[in-house]
């Protein structure tokens, strides 16, 4: 019997190609929802949901299985982990940059204004704390007058 074993770094690299279905500019590793990859017996990928009601959870799980199958990994299991709960602090620096370029202000823990992702002005105002998806708030820039979304801290 031919035993194929994978290195978890390799699996992580393949998973870094899987896009988040709601914010396709981000991959699931940018988001920080891939918590662990265990290659000791087949491949077990531990994923954590961003929100309990996130409708993307099942889609993401299916995309992970599909992405790994495409690389020839057949024995893939998904484990859902809840603890510790996901936080926006796990979004990578690369992910934050991608969000900004995409037009979404990334989550900021620091005090101060939310900066417009288009013109970098700090003269912005909140239109609604509760935006198009649970994770976003609606903002408007008073300088360039463009509306934009802010990815809230969680």
């Amino acid at each position: 019997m031919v035993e194929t074993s994978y290195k978890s770094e390799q699996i992580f690299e393949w998973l870094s190609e899987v896009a988040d279905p709601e914010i396709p500019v981000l991959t699931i590793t940018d988001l920080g929802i891939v918590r662990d990859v265990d290659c000791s017996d087949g491949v077990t990928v531990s994923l954590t949901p961003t929100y309990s009601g996130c409708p993307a959870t099942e889609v993401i799980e299916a995309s992970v299985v599909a992405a790994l199958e495409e690389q020839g990994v057949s024995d893939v299991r998904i484990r859902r982990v809840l603890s510790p709960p996901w936080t926006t602090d796990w979004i990578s620096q690369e992910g934050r940059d991608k969000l900004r370029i995409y037009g979404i202000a990334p989550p900021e823990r620091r005090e101060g204004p939310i900066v417009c992702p288009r013109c970098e002005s700090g003269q912005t105002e909140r239109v609604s704390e509760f935006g198009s998806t649970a994770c976003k708030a609606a903002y408007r820039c008073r300088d360039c007058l463009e509306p934009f979304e802010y990815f809230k801290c969680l």
Partner: protein
Amino acid sequence: MSDNLLMAAYASRLGDNALVLGQRMIELVAASPELEEELANANFSLDYIGQARMFYTYAGKCEGVGRDEDDFAFLRPEHEYRNLLLVEQPNGHFGDSTVRQVLFESWYLHLLEALTRCSDEGISEIAARAIKEVRYHLRHSSQWLLRLGDGTEESHRRVQQSLDNLWKFTGEMFSPDDLDDEMRAIFNGPHLEIIEAQWREDVRAIVEQATLKMPDNQWMASGGKQGRHTEHFGYLLAEMQHLQQTYPGATW
């Protein structure tokens, strides 16, 4: 009752609160006063349904006879639902829904907080996940209570009426039954009297800031935790369950 069955009953009761409230909120989809509100409500109801799924899945696992989340949600009759009467109350006007959310979420937040410290890992993990969501749900519903209470004379009058009408459904949140007692004794579960004091303080602060009056102590309705529901609940279930009850196991 074995510890596992106790946990199954407790988890499914938490699932019932989340699912029934989520279903009520879904009824409001396409009926909100403004677009942002529409999206907020829909996203929040999704959070509740997501929480219900986790609680039911866990209940099924503890019970160990192969029931899944859908079995709990769609194939149980009314008297097996153990949710609070408060969450099954109809949406009424926007003030009624807002008050229902504030009263429930102020309680649920403290309950979840206590559950993160219980000795059962399955429940404490779900609670830790859910609490982050409920914290901003409550921020949202409280903001609306402030706007309505401290708004126009008409909105003030109507939302005070909502508060007075729904108040009788709050007693049930704090009167422990056998399941609450066992949960506390065996798993270091929530202490409902402590939660009542915290809740009262939080609700009083919001109500007074909204220039509203706390309702007087009064007769309290109960029965939800024993499966005796108000007449509104059957209609909610009928709509929610109709497809699965007609074609059990149907998928698409």
